[in-house]
C-alpha cells in the first residue's frame, strides 16, 4: 500500500515538473506554425510525450492569454486550427528559457 502511495506521489511530482516545462516547450515549438496534432507528435518525437487532454486545452488557454495566435486553415479537405507564437509569447518564451537554464545550472549544483 505504501509502495503504491509512494509511486503516486512520485507520479504527481514528475507531472508537476513536466507541467512547468510544458508551456516553455509549447511556446518554443510554435515558433513554426502548427496545429494541435502535429505539435503533439513533434513534442513526442522530442521525448516530451503529453496526453491530448492536457495539450489541446493548454493551446486555447495560451491563446486566451495572448501568448499564441491561431487561424483556421483547410488542409487535406479538413479544417485545422493552426497556432503560432505571438510577440508577447516570444518575449515570455525568451525569459522563461533564461529562467530554465539558470534553474538547471542551480539544480545541478544542488544535486552534486
Amino acid at each position: 500500500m505504501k509502495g503504491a502511495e509512494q509511486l503516486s506521489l512520485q507520479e504527481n511530482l514528475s507531472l508537476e515538473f513536466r507541467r512547468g516545462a510544458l508551456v516553455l516547450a509549447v511556446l518554443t515549438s510554435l515558433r513554426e506554425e502548427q496545429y494541435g496534432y502535429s505539435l503533439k507528435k513533434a513534442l513526442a518525437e522530442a521525448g516530451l510525450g503529453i496526453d491530448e487532454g492536457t495539450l489541446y486545452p493548454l493551446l486555447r488557454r495560451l491563446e486566451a492569454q495572448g501568448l499564441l495566435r491561431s487561424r483556421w486553415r483547410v488542409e487535406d479537405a479538413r479544417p485545422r486550427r493552426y497556432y503560432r507564437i505571438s510577440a508577447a509569447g516570444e518575449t515570455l518564451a525568451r525569459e522563461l528559457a533564461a529562467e530554465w537554464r539558470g534553474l538547471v545550472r542551480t539544480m545541478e549544483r544542488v544535486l552534486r
Partner: protein
Amino acid sequence: MTPREKADDLIARYLHEAGQSLPRGQRADVTAELRGLLEDSLEERAAAAGRPPDEELAAEVLRAFGKPGEVAERYRTGPRHLIGPELFPAYRATLKIILIVLAILFLAGIALSAVFVPERIQKHLGIITVWSWVENYAKYAFLNIALATLIFAVIEHLKFRRGAGAAAEAEVWNPRELPKIEDPDRISAAGRLVSIYFIVAFFVVFNFFPQYFGLLFFGGGEVRAISALEMGYRIPALLLNLWWFCALALNMALLRQGRWTRDLRWAEFGLGLFGGLIIYFTLAGSDFSVINAEWFAERGWERAFEAGAETQQKLSRLGRLLAIPLRIALVVAVIEAMVRLFRLLTRYRHSS
C-alpha cells in the same frame, strides 16, 4: 453502416456529448477543433494497425482523449462555482444573520400573537402549532437563503467579468498602499455584502409583497400579516425605492473601491439626509387614526379592546405608539448626519 461510418458516428456522439458541457459561445469552435484532432488520431492509429478506421479504433482514440465531460471541463475558462472562495465567508455570514434575524422576527411575531390573539394560540397550542411555526420558519428561511444565494451569485459573476482588469491591477500592486492596522476607512466586504442583501430583500418585499411589509403574526398554524399601509403608515414609495437604489450603488462603489474615500463619505452623508427626509415625509403623511374599534373588529380581534370609554384612550395611545419608531428613526438619522458631517469636516480636511 460501413466500419468507417460507424467510427464517424461514434466520434460525432462523443463531440455532441462534450459540446453539451461547454459554454454555448465556445461550443462550435472547440468541437470543430476536437473533430479535426480526433480524425487525425484515428487515421494515425489505423495506419499503425494496418487497417482502415473502424469503430474499435475510434473507441481506442476516444478512450485516450478521456470522458467527454472531462475533456469539456479542461477547455472551459471561467469559474466553475456559483460563489467563489473570496465571497464565501461573506455569504456564510449573511446566511447566519438571515437565520438569526428571521428567528427574532418569528419569536416577536409569536409574542405579538400571544398579546393580541391569545385565544387562537391557546386553542391550538400543542405539537401541531409548534410544528407549524417550524414549518413557516423553514419556508421563510429557504426563501431568504435562495434570494441571498442569487444575489451573491450575481456579484460573483460581475466580479469575474471584470476579472481581467483586476489581474492587471494586481500586477502593479504597491505594498506601501496597504491599509494601516487602525484604519477608519477600511471596509468590511462581508458587512457590505450583508447590507446589499438586506437592501435587495427589503426592496423585493416592499414592491412585490407589500402585504408582508409590516407586522407578522404566527399562530394557529397560519401566518397573518398586517401591512404598514393597513396600520396607517404612508411611506413615499418612489422616494424609498430611489433611496434603496442609491444605497445599493453606494455599497457597490465601496466594494469596488475597497475603502472609504472622501467622496463616498459625502455620498453616505447625502444618503443619510435623504433617508431622514423620507422618514419625515412618512411621519407627516401617516394617519394612525385608522386603527379604531372597527379596525380590530374587522380582523376578529374585538376582544383585544373591550367597548367603553377606555377603548378610545387605548387606541389613541396605540396610534402614538406606532409613531414612536418613526420618531426614534428620525432622531437617529439627524444625529448620524451630524456625526458624519463632523467626521467629514475634521478627518478629510487635509486631503482636499
